[in-house]
């Protein structure tokens, strides 16, 4: 099975100050699939996913070495427009973080900051995005209420709708369900499976069961090293590395 590759990570090393987080990680992320980055706390999976949209740039003592190619373009090249990049590669965070504004404004924000003011166009984007995030039916009658009045699971779907509104190609999920109850988690997972038809999805999780449920490919990271990468079914049935096997069987992590 030959897949198109969207993101290529080549020899990625990253540091917070002197502390090295990622150690020479090399990995190809296939298109139109769900790739899970799995591993125990502190393995570098969140650091890695935050390299894809350069979210780590916000941390002053963060340093990155190596290459990450998105559709062949080096994300860390000097002439890359970081705001354009983040429009292509959206992100959903660990804790639902809607803006303290209305549901409508939350979803419209990404479009508005591109300078678009056409009311009808924005209305359309808001509706379409909320539908894709499976939230439209629940909120269509109260679009102008505060997004903070919604439940945690709904807030997380607002964040997904908000990310979809700017028409990204890749969506990064950084442990999207860690703050949610099992029912809300199931909804988000279902949504992720739904979205992979049109988007390339990367999910960070420390939950092996979640990786097994949602992903097509799984990368197992441990202490900054990429231990193993392959189709999820294969990783979970015949792990090639002892550490992967130990993690999957719950010996640590």
């Amino acid at each position, binding site marked *: 099975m030959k897949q198109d590759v969207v993101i290529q990570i080549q020899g990625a090393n990253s540091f917070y100050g002197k502390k090295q987080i990622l150690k020479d990680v090399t990995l190809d992320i296939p298109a139109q699939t769900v790739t899970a980055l799995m591993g125990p706390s502190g393995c570098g999976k969140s650091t890695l996913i935050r390299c894809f949209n350069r979210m780590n740039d916000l941390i002053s003592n963060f340093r990155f070495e190596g290459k990450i190619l998105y559709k062949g373009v080096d994300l860390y090249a000097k002439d890359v427009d970081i705001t*354009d990049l*983040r*429009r292509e590669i959206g992100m959903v*965070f660990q804790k639902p973080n809607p*803006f*303290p504004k209305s549901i409508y404004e939350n979803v419209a*924000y990404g479009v508005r900051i591109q300078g678009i003011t056409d009311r009808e166009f924005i209305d359309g984007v808001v509706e379409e995005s909320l539908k894709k995030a499976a939230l439209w039916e629940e909120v269509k009658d109260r679009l102008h209420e505060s997004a*903070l009045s919604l439940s945690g699971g709904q807030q997380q779907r607002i964040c997904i709708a*908000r990310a979809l509104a700017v028409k990204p190609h890749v969506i990064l999920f950084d442990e999207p369900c860690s703050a949610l109850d099992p029912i809300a988690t199931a909804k988000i997972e279902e949504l992720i499976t739904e979205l992979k038809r049109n988007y390339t999805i990367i999910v960070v999780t420390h939950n092996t069961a979640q990786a097994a449920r949602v992903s097509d490919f799984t990368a197992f990271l441990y202490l900054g090293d990429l231990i193993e990468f392959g189709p999820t079914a294969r990783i979970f049935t015949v792990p090639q590395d002892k550490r992967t096997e130990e993690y999957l069987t719950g010996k640590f992590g």
Partner: protein
Amino acid sequence: MSSRKLDKKVDSAFKFVGLAATLFGLVVLAALVVDVVSDGYHRLGWDFFTSFPSRKPEQAGIFSAWVGTIWIMITTAIFAIPLGIGSGIYMEEYAKRNRWTDFIEINIANLAGVPSVIYGILGLGVFIRLMHLDRSVLAGGLILALLILPVIILSTREALRSVPSSIREASYALGATKWQTIRHQVLPAGFGNILTGVILAMSRAIGETAPLITIGALTYIPFLPTNPVAFNKEIPYIHVSLQGFFDPFTVLPIQIFNWVSRPQKGFLADAAAGIIVLLTITLAMNAAAIYLRYKNQKRW
């Protein structure tokens, strides 16, 4: 006596001492307010607000003083608010952390604690001797602006810092630039707290006397600063003038200070009435600040 019993005794004794200390403050304050109100309330009336100061205590009023206070407050706000919020945003959001910014930061915190009379002396040297602004509204407003600038900078930074980083990350992740993130997310989220800080700073400025006396703000001012907008019968019918900023002025605390230092009994009643007015304004501003702070408590 076992040490356990002793602990309990100390405990209840401290409770009593603490209560006494609290009550002492409250009682003294209440006594002062009652005293001032009983001295001054009979002077409060329409005439008191519309009369200029006079040699006769029963005819004297605070017209020039409250109008002057408004002029000074507006001038102070014009300079202190944009400068203070601007530097607060810069220092919190843009400036790189290094020794130089640490140094500036410590000094701003120190400036917030400098006695106000020092600002008066600085103002006398810079605005009056050097820039020849004389004892004008502009000079007074600039001095008070300098005085409250550190307070506004600090409270702006505090307000911005309390906006969670998750909001900023969410904005950046959608492709927003730094300025868009600040303008559309961080500032609105911190707006209530910034406003609270500004109001508290202004309410400090409104009661300041020392720096204005240092520059020799006059206490007997039987006229108002020139009206900024005047109407007349000739085209273009409306006349806008900035002359008021260069006119001499007095403010409420100076007027009160002046009356208190007079020997005649009647002026003491005038002073008490002036204090009631000033206290009311200050308390109202503080109440507004507390209300805003309460209203803007953590929404995330």
